[in-house]
C-alpha cells in the first residue's frame, strides 16, 4: 500500500518538480536504493535537490519519454518499442548499470520445499503446475502471487522464467514487493517473487539448486539475477552526471550493499 501511495505521488510529482531539481523516477525495486542515494548526495551537496519517486520501471521510462523526469531507474533492459518512442522524440537513451539484484523466490516458512528449478517455476507461474506435491511438497494447492504489470520485476520474471508467455490468470497481482512478502508470510501455500532486499519472514528458495547469495548473484551463476540500470536522455550532464557519478562512487556502492543489493564496482 505504501507503493500505491508512491504511485499516487508519482502521478502528481511532475506538477511539483521545478528547475534546479534532479528528478529520479521508476523501478519500485530501486526506490529505496535511489532514496538512500539521494539523501546521502544531498547531505554531501546541500545546494542540490534530488526527488525520488517509484511507480515501476515502465512508469520511469514513460516519464523519461514524456520528459517529466531526468533519470529513470529501471530494473530491466529497455524494450525496443520504448527505445523507438524515445528516439521518435529526438533523444537516445543512455544506460548505466549501477547495481545488481537477484530476484528471490519466496515461500511460506512452513513450506517444506527448499529448491525449485527454473522449469518448475515456469510451470507454476504458467498455471500448468497447480499442486505443491507436483514439485515435491505437500498435497496442497499452489497460491501464486505476482506483481502489477508496471513492475520491472514482473517483466524480468516474465522474460527470464516464463520466456515471454503470460502469467496464469489466477496469479494475484500485488502492488510492491513488500506486499508480496507480506502475503506469502500469511499464506501457507503461497509463492511469490521480488527483490532480495525485501525477504523478511519468508523462506527464500534455491533456484536450480543455487541460493541467491552475493557470490552467485554477482557472478551471474544464480539464474534469476539481473543488473539494475539508470537511464538518461543522452549522455548524463551537469547535476545529473554528478549524481550518477556519486551512485557509482565508493560511498554510493556501499549504500547498494546496505540496502541489500550487490555493487557493480
Amino acid at each position: 500500500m505504501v507503493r500505491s501511495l508512491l504511485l499516487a505521488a508519482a502521478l502528481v510529482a511532475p506538477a511539483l518538480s521545478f528547475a534546479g531539481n534532479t528528478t529520479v523516477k521508476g523501478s519500485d525495486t530501486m526506490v529505496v536504493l535511489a532514496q538512500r542515494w539521494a539523501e546521502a548526495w544531498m547531505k554531501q551537496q546541500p545546494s542540490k535537490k534530488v526527488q525520488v519517486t517509484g511507480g515501476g520501471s515502465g512508469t520511469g521510462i514513460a516519464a523519461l519519454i514524456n520528459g517529466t523526469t531526468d533519470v529513470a531507474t529501471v530494473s530491466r533492459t529497455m524494450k525496443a518499442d520504448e527505445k523507438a518512442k524515445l528516439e521518435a522524440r529526438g533523444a537516445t537513451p543512455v544506460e548505466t548499470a549501477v547495481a545488481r539484484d537477484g530476484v528471490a523466490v519466496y515461500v511460506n516458512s512452513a513450506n517444506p520445499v527448499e529448491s525449485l528449478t527454473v522449469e518448475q517455476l515456469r510451470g507454476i507461474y504458467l498455471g500448468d503446475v497447480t499442486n505443491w506435491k507436483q514439485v515435491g511438497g505437500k498435497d496442497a494447492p499452489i497460491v501464486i502471487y505476482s506483481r502489477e504489470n508496471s513492475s520491472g520485476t514482473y517483466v524480468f520474471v516474465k522474460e527470464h522464467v516464463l520466456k515471454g508467455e503470460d502469467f496464469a490468470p489466477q496469479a494475484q497481482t500485488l502492488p510492491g514487493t513488500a506486499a508480496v512478502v507480506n502475503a506469502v508470510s500469511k499464506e501457507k501455500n503461497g509463492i511469490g517473487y521480488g527483490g532480495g532486499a525485501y525477504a523478511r519472514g519468508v523462506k527464500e528458495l534455491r533456484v536450480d539448486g543455487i541460493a541467491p547469495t552475493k557470490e552467485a548473484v554477482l557472478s551471474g551463476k544464480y539464474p534469476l539475477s539481473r543488473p539494475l540500470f539508470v537511464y538518461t536522455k543522452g549522455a548524463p550532464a551537469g547535476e545529473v552526471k554528478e549524481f550518477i557519478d556519486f551512485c557509482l562512487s565508493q560511498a554510493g556502492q556501499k549504500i547498494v550493499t546496505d540496502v541489500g543489493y550487490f555493487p557493480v564496482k
Partner: protein
Amino acid sequence: MDAAAITLGGPPATPARSRRRQRREAAIEAAITLVALTGIAAVALIFVFVAKEALPLLLDPAVRGEASLSKLFLPQLLRVGKPEGFMWQPVSTIPKVSMIPLFIGTLKTTIVAMLVAVPVGVAAALFSAEFAPRRVREVVKPVIELLAGIPSVVLGFFALMVLASVLQGAFGFTFRLNAVVAGLALAVTVVPVVFTVSEDALTAVPRSYREASLALGATRWETAWRVVLPAAAPGVLAAVVLGFGRAIGETMIVLMASGNAAITSWSFGDSVRTLSATIAAEMGEVVFGGAHYSILFFIGVELFLFTFVLNTAAGAIVHRLVRRMTASDA
C-alpha cells in the same frame, strides 16, 4: 413571490422599488442557475475528456489492431493448444485485453457488498426510524454515518491484514484475498449510504399513515413492515442505487483486498480484479496515447455508463412508484 415579500415587511412598494427588486431577483436566479449549470457542465466535460481518450479504440487503426471490440469482448486464443478464453494480460508480446474477467470481478465484489449492505442498511434504518427510543436513535444514527467517514485505505488495510485471515480460517478459502473479503469490506462503505438515505425516506412518511395503521389494530411491526416501508419504497430504492454506485466505483478497498487476479470464474472464493482497481493499478505505467492507455480510459467510460444507466433506470422506477402511490392516495 413579490406579493409575499411585500407583505413580509420592508418599505411600501413603489413602482421603482418593485422594479429594482425584480431585477435583483432575476440576478439571484441567474446566479443559482449558473451554479447548477456548472455542476452539469463539469460532469459533461469529464465524460467528454474520458471518452475522447478512449476514442482511439474506435478510430486509430494501430490501436484497433491491439484492442478491437472482438478482442475486448469475445473469447480469444490464449495459448497454442488450449481452448479459447478470456484473459486480461495487457502487457505481453500479444496483449490480451478481455473485459470479461474484469466485469465478472466487479460484479462479484458488488454482489457480495450489496447482499450484505442492503439488508443491514435498510434494517438499521427501519429500526432507527420506527422502533428505537429517541436516545438510542441519537447514538445509532451518527455512529453509522461515521462509518462513511472512515478512509477507504484504512478499511482496505484492515481487510488485507485482519479480515482476510479471519475469513480464510473460518471458511478455508484457497485464496486468502478474494471476492468475499473485498465485498465485505466494500459493504462497510455501502451501509452508511443505504442507511442514511433510507432513514430519511422512512422518517418522511407522514405520521398519519402510522396513526391510521395503528388505529386499525396493526402492531408496530406490521405498521413498519407493511405500511411505512412500502410508502418509503422510492426513497429506499434510491438508497440502494446510490449504494450500488458507491460499491462499483470504490477503488482502494478492492485494490488492496481482492487479490487483483483477473480470473474468469463464478466462485466467490477466487481472487478477482475489478474495473476500478485495474485503472488504478495500471494507469501509472502506460505511455500516453498507446492502446493500453485508451483501454484504461475505455474502462472509465464503462464505469461512467454503468452508473448513468443505473441511475436513469432507478429514476424512472422511482417516478412510476411515486405516481402510483399518489394516484391511489387520491
